[in-house]
């Protein structure tokens, strides 16, 4: 029956064109995805301090044992890692991931992951058809946008057979398919080695954060295409089938007969198209779209065909401007998303960038004949012409685009504005040069996780329950579907191993508490294993509260190991998975330490300490209504206007480092902590560099 693994990882050396394999078994203890990627990176990159643009940088593109299986919201998701080029001031070892069907096809082709080393001296793409792997000349693809590239590769691989069964070899039993290959590609902005370049797959799937598109550009790697006809093996097929049927009750798929607009709070429960249609023009006909094996299909296919399958920031970076200019969401926002994806730009940088540039324009600093000269016409903001022009400048590196191309942080530094504009917050970069997403001052688990980590975490596990649900409810004078006391109870029941209801206290005291250290640690360990190593989708897991279930209890922590065990035949407990997550987190932390991380660097930009968290000031949030425990009672309360206290943040860091077993002076893992986790070789390496926590 197998165990979900193919047993092989594909290794590509672009410098010498060598194609080889690695045994998955060596890294199986990490589950898959991120854990394997970190361990492989550790082994293959002796000097972790190199630039992301250095040919020695290794990029891992990993599936998991659940790739290509019927486990819900995981089959196609893919984890990408390596030294990113977006991080500021240091190019941290980082991660991104994307949905679609890439890792599923990777599994069907017989690969648990792909490791890319070196750099080619000319543009290449990689053509994978089962075990046949070829590094090919990409001269004909270089310069094409991400859609054009994929369509051209489809044409090459399908070779005129588009709808009939197509054999992947000359022999009768070579395997046949009716599917298009899954292609991961960069656009023109990646080719020019931008720190703001994404990897794009199909439509609406991008690994945007980290600047991996620019890393591929530096490697002269245009695209990887994969198609397979093999199986995703399953140790206990009947158990997997039963698990999928069991999970139906937690989602819309099992509740269509009673379907009604859902209260916020559960990503797993959400309706088809709920993400894709949220900000689309309301009159545009659409159908749902989903990633491979998804149980809910949160995206949408639009009548215009523009930016199909896009969700959230994919087009949200321009929705408010579109609405302000036109009084409603229009086709402009979908076309803007389409243009950004074709170029292959990390849209988070566009989102914050437009906010910042508009501030500078409004203040008379930027514009025609101004201190920062530009031809960009800000009277047209919100129109298609504005975003088209900005993207063109960005891609082709002229006008202000020449500097924006290097990312907002480095652009601001060049313009001499980084310090002052991150102090006022008009340049909303919260930490490490990453765009303000959810607010560190209010939803602290998001901010702390990003700061102690290396990027905007973009993990919505708590976000829907502690911020969106109560805040949106408050806008309408209603109560959150999950009462605050139930939320605390669910935390106590489900957030193993800490099981502390105070983990949900976002009061002015709670955000600096040891319980909040537990919240952040739980989140780091949970996501590192279950969502980034097993690759469960962020828009489905965790499921703490579920509106389809009578008592509101979601499918976490039962579901995560249930699917894994059915596929692998193992008997993993949730707590064991959390411990593997802790191991991966400490491995990542050790890489960052080698790159130069210490306690003193872990500070938010100034606006987080000096400007109140005002709704809508930095990006798109509604008022910050969060769960608090005050005077012996749980409730939701507005914490808008809150600033972080520098000393208290430092106190909290001490609590967090202590909880993690890191030195409190530097925030470095200790030998005892690393050896307890089976990372003696990592401890030895840190020791040799005099960077072991004491």
């Amino acid at each position, binding site marked *: 029956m197998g165990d979900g693994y193919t047993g092989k990882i594909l290794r590509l050396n672009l410098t010498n064109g060598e194609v080889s394999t690695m045994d998955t078994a060596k890294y199986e203890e990490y589950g898959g995805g991120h854990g394997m990627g970190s361990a492989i990176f550790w082994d293959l990159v002796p000097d972790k301090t190199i630039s992301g643009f250095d040919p020695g940088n290794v990029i891992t593109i990993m599936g998991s044992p659940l790739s290509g*299986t*019927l486990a819900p919201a995981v089959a196609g998701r893919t984890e990408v890692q390596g030294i990113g080029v977006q991080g500021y001031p240091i190019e941290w070892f980082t991660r991104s991931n994307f949905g679609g069907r890439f890792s599923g096809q990777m599994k069907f082709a017989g690969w648990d992951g792909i490791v890319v080393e070196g750099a080619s001296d000319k543009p290449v793409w990689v053509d994978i058809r089962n075990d046949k792997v070829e590094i090919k000349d990409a001269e004909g693809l270089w310069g094409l946008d991400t859609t054009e590239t994929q369509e051209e590769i489809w044409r090459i691989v399908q070779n005129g057979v588009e709808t009939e069964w197509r054999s992947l070899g000359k022999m009768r039993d070579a395997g046949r398919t009716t599917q298009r290959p899954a292609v991961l590609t960069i656009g023109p902005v990646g080719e020019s080695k931008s720190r703001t370049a994404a990897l794009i797959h199909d439509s609406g799937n991008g690994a945007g954060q980290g600047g991996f598109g620019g890393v591929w550009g530096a490697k002269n790697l245009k695209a990887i295409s994969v198609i397979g006809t093999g199986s995703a093996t*399953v140790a206990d097929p009947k158990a997997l089938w039963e698990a999928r049927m069991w999970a139906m009750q937690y989602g819309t798929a099992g509740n269509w007969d009673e379907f009604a607009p859902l209260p916020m709070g559960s990503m797993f429960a959400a309706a088809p198209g709920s993400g894709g249609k949220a900000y689309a023009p309301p009159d545009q006909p659409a159908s749902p779209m989903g990633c491979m094996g998804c149980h809910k299909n949160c995206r949408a296919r639009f009548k215009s065909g523009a930016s199909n399958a896009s969700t959230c920031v994919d087009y949200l970076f321009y929705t408010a401007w579109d609405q302000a200019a036109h009084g409603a969401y229009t086709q402009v926002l979908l076309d803007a998303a389409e243009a950004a994806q074709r170029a292959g730009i990390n849209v988070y940088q566009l989102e914050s960038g437009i906010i910042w540039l508009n501030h500078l324009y409004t203040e008379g600093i930027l514009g025609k004949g101004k201190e920062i000269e530009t031809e960009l016409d800000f009277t047209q903001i919100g129109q298609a012409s504005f975003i088209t022009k900005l993207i063109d400048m960005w891609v082709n590196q002229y006008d202000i685009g020449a500097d924006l191309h290097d990312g907002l942080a480095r652009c601001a530094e060049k313009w001499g504005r980084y310090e002052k504009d991150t102090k006022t917050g008009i340049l909303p970069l919260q930490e490490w040069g990453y765009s303000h997403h959810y607010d560190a001052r209010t939803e602290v688990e998001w901010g702390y996780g990003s700061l102690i980590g290396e990027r905007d975490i973009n993990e919505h596990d708590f976000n829907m329950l502690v911020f969106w649900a109560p805040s949106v409810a408050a806008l309408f004078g209603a109560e959150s579907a999950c009462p605050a006391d139930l939320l605390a109870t669910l935390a106590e029941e489900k957030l193993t191993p800490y099981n502390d209801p105070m983990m949900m206290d976002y009061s002015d005291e709670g955000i600096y508490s040891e319980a909040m250290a537990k919240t952040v640690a739980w989140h780091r360990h949970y996501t590192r294993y279950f969502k980034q190593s097993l690759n469960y989708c962020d828009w489905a897991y965790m499921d703490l509260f579920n509106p389809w279930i009578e008592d509101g209890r979601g499918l976490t922590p039962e579901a995560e190991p249930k699917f894994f065990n059915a596929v692998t035949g193992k008997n993993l407990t949730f707590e064991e998975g959390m411990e593997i997550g802790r191991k991966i987190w400490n491995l990542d932390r050790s890489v960052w330490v080698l790159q130069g991380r210490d306690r003193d660097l872990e500070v938010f930009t100034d606006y987080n300490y000096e400007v109140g968290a005002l709704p809508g000031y930095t990006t798109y949030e509604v008022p910050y209504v969060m769960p608090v425990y005050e005077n012996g009672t749980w409730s939701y309360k507005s914490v808008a206007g809150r600033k972080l206290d520098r000393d208290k943040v430092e106190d909290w860091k001490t609590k967090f480092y202590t909880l993690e077993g890191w030195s409190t002076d530097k925030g470095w893992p200790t030998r005892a902590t690393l050896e307890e986790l089976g990372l003696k070789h990592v401890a030895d390496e840190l020791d040799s560099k005099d960077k072991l926590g004491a």
Partner: protein
Amino acid sequence: MADNDIKKVEPGEHKEVTRRQFITGVGGAGVGLVLGGLLVKGFFLPEEVFAVPASEGYLLVDTKKCAGCASCMLACSLVHEGACNLSLSRIQVQSNAFAAFAEEGSVVQQQCRQCTYPACVDACPTGALHVDPKNGNVRTVDASKCIGCERCVEACPFTPSRMQWNFLDKHAQKCDLCVDTPFMTEDGGPGGQQACVAVCPTRAISFTTEIPRQADVGYKVNLREGMAGWAVAGFPTLDDGSYAPTTAAPEAPAAGH
């Protein structure tokens, strides 16, 4: 019917039906040879014809509900083969991420139609492909009799062929409405559950015992109108992308009024 001349028919199987048997009804099983939903008149038939009883179940799909997630394909291969494999799924979903809603080829579920005239069964020289009277006359494959000639694959009139070559186990296979599903807990077949129907997140596949009109319109249907939640979820219910019942906005008043 040249192929039929060389077919060896097992006792008790009805690979060939005499004109008389056909006209009087095949074992009382029902419809027989149906074209476009109409019985072919007996007097048009030769003395010996190929005719089989109609299947007691059919899969219908709604291409405008399909999200292209391929959950049906993963489920199909899982319950039949014990592994998830798109190439061994008996339903094939083909999609183009860049195509617009309702655009030709944007997304389509290619399911076996359990044809009233099953060309695949007719083409099989060994009787491996047969009508299974014990399971509602579903058209299915006895792998032990399959010699791998793939005539069934070629005979299927649809693209992609709903007959497929199982290149791992070396035999032809097709949709059996989940009769032979050792890895599905529930009973399958025309009287039971079909994995693709059960798993589809948007209910874009349904099962019927009524014989569909033998054309695309009979098998590619609107499953949106009868589902209240679909419009509530914000999706159009009519094929032209509008909602049912239509709520057309009043025309803007002309100038001067």
